């Protein structure tokens, strides 16, 4: 398992190596990359990502562990950036490695829904407004309840 909260750009290739190297039973790896996108045209201001140190790492570890157990993953990674991010930059990368493709897809999807609603990050737009939580994200999380 690989968990990281960082102000630096995300090096997906090296994360892939960490969770896949030396394993011969991985048949499927799903990687999700979240990027800062231009929400309205011409809106070029950066995002600022705040987080709650130590709780963040703890939550991300919980999320990845639960994904591994629930979807029988071989390994998982979550990397989340903090600080100032320009449009087009990567915010988050999650990866799920599994024997089979559907569990890799489900594992990565689950980690993203969980992370969106439960990991202590907050986004502030360039104009000083805080991004509001979306009901759609909470609804997406609910699909994993059992």
């Amino acid at each position, binding site marked *: 398992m690989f968990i990281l909260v960082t102000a630096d750009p995300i090096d997906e290739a090296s994360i892939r190596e960490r969770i896949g190297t030396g394993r011969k039973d991985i048949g499927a790896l799903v990687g999700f990359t979240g990027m800062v996108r231009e929400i309205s045209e011409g809106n070029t201001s950066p995002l600022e990502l705040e987080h709650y140190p130590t709780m963040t790492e703890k939550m991300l570890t919980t999320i990845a562990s639960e994904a591994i157990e629930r979807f029988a993953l071989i390994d998982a990674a979550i990397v*989340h950036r903090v600080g100032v991010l320009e449009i087009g930059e990567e915010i988050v990368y999650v990866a799920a490695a599994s024997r089979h493709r559907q569990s890799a897809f489900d594992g990565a999807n689950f980690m993203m829904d969980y992370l969106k609603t439960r990991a202590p990050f907050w986004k502030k737009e360039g104009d000083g407004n805080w991004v509001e939580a979306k009901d759609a994200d909470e609804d997406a999380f609910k699909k994993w309840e059992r």
Partner: protein
Amino acid sequence: MPSRPLSFWRTDMELRYFAWVRERIGKQSETYQGSALTIKELLDELETRGDGYQAALADRGILRVALDQNIAGGNQSIKGIREIAIFPPMTGG
């Protein structure tokens, strides 16, 4: 055991604020030494401390509270807790 006030044993709690809760209150953290026993009592007490606190804490339905870094509900006891964080819904990812 003699009947002493609970606060006698209580160690100081660290309060931590994030995002617009932090901005409205105007600080990142502070030490709490009051007598609140639950999250709700704590929020009620903090809200009396001024306009900033009120602006930050008025909308209880939206606030999230973590006790020692675990998300908790309003009626939960804060006894024995070392760190209480108050923040808006998360918007990561």
